[in-house]
């Protein structure tokens, strides 16, 4: 793949790449760093992509790995609470606005919700993009919907 094609293909998926990085990192400045690092990694690994039709999941996979690395780096920089110090989640007596509910989801749950509902990606596609088993995608979707239902006071169809 030449640089011009790489550039065109990457820009085609600008919105998806933004949504994935935002859903995982939830901080706009971090998203800028993540996409730059992911594009650099993807360009270096471009020879691993022989089927241009697989560009989208291939690039998203690299981006999610990059985001995971950033999260790990951030976690190392701050002390993790011990289990018994974990903050208990209070039941939501009033419905929470959707945006706030999405923000309250874990990055893993937020990402599968965004990919599935907003991008229309199937479980298998998401598994391919995130590099996790399909069963894990299904369980993350299930728990994410359960969490949203508790916050929104409304269930969401599969």
């Amino acid at each position, binding site marked *: 793949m030449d640089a011009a094609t*790489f550039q065109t293909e990457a820009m085609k998926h600008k919105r998806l790449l933004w949504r994935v990085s935002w859903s995982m990192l939830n901080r*706009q400045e971090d998203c800028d*760093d993540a996409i*730059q690092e992911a594009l650099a990694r993807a360009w270096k690994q471009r020879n*691993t992509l022989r*089927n241009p039709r697989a560009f989208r999941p291939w690039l998203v996979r690299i981006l999610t790995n990059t985001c995971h690395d950033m999260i790990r780096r951030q976690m190392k920089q701050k002390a993790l609470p011990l289990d018994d110090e974990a903050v208990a989640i209070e039941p939501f007596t009033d419905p929470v606005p959707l945006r706030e509910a999405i923000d309250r989801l874990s990055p893993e749950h937020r990402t599968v*919700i965004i990919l599935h*509902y*907003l991008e229309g990606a199937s*479980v298998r596609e998401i598994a391919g993009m995130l590099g996790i088993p399909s069963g894990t995608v299904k369980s993350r979707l299930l728990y994410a919907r359960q969490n949203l239902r508790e916050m929104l006071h409304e269930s969401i169809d599969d």
Partner: protein
Amino acid sequence: MKKEEFRKQLHAETPEPPDHFELAMQRELSRISAEAQAEAPVRTQPGRIRGGLPRKAILIAMIVAMLAGAVALASTLLKQNVFELILWDSPENADSVIQYDLAKESFDECDVEIKQAAYDGVSLYIVYSIRERGATETLGEYEEETGLYYYGGQTFPAMERDQIGWWTDQFWIDGRDVDMPSMSTGMIVGSDTPGELLFYNMYRLDQEDIYLDGKNVEIALPIGRQQPHDTLVIDRSGDKPVTLKPGKGLITFHLDCSVRDGITITHPNVEADLGTHTAKVAEVTYSPIQMYATMSLQVKQEALDAFTAQYGEGWYDSEGNLMWPYSGMDVFGDWIATLQLVDGDGVPVFDPADLAGVYGLGGYGDNAAWFTFPYLETWPDEMYLAPMDGDTADFTQAVRLK
């Protein structure tokens, strides 16, 4: 909340890419472009490109590629079979399993058609269309390279007015409800026909332990007039709740699924001790469309203990909450992701780059992993799933498949 309603709300609440994100992308892409220009190879041997072909061979290759492109384009314009979008290729046996034009039902403004279906002994493939009869424009964004009309949404106004489209989780086979199986996939595209959306789907029925047989299997999809969910009747008398087939809202067709009579299934079961875990290929199905392999896995407790001693208790979210503890799949995940199908000499049967995004590792858990590979008429006499060590397989970490 309906899926489509949630999607719309989510869309409204999700921020669009800000300018600085686009700028960050453009900056990096410009840097890559500049780097590529600086590194452009100098052609020192007239008539040859680096690692390439003599000029005459390139010319022949170009003509062949142009002819192949013309054939591909003609094929696109005529009809894309279900495999071309699900597997990005049409296996040589495609015609022997695909059945066309299986059902049609008309609503006030739209027609719904089951255009293609196929069963390969493991997976069920279906293409259905929803078309607004009075439409004058095509749906989706046409991409010349692939000949596809990419479509982001899942409905259009006439479809909503007719209240049609997939409306519940399950579908029904011979009256039995089927939950959406793991590793299923699908794609929605427009077509050359104005107002038409095509829904390409593949369902891994084996993941729900469903195997079809017989020449007249009844398949009912919930893509007719949408019915209230509270009209679904759930029978909870057995071990597992069963959603009874509703009387309305389905499009039903019959499919010849007798292909399973002719496929080969083997159970190699040659266990390999790989240090941290044991593995064996428990089942291989050589279908006329794909080869499916199921691997059984068992992590060793001491390996899991060593892993947690080194890396901690499990996966944490960004706020430091334990999401789930480490398990076998974390221990052997890196190994499993590197496996390739190789022959007895350790040579890959397929170029891994050609499998990307479609074949290869489809999913894995603590006790099993699922692989698929393209159809071959003849397979090597001896095959393994193995990581590569340079150009050849590392047989110390291999699991025998054949």
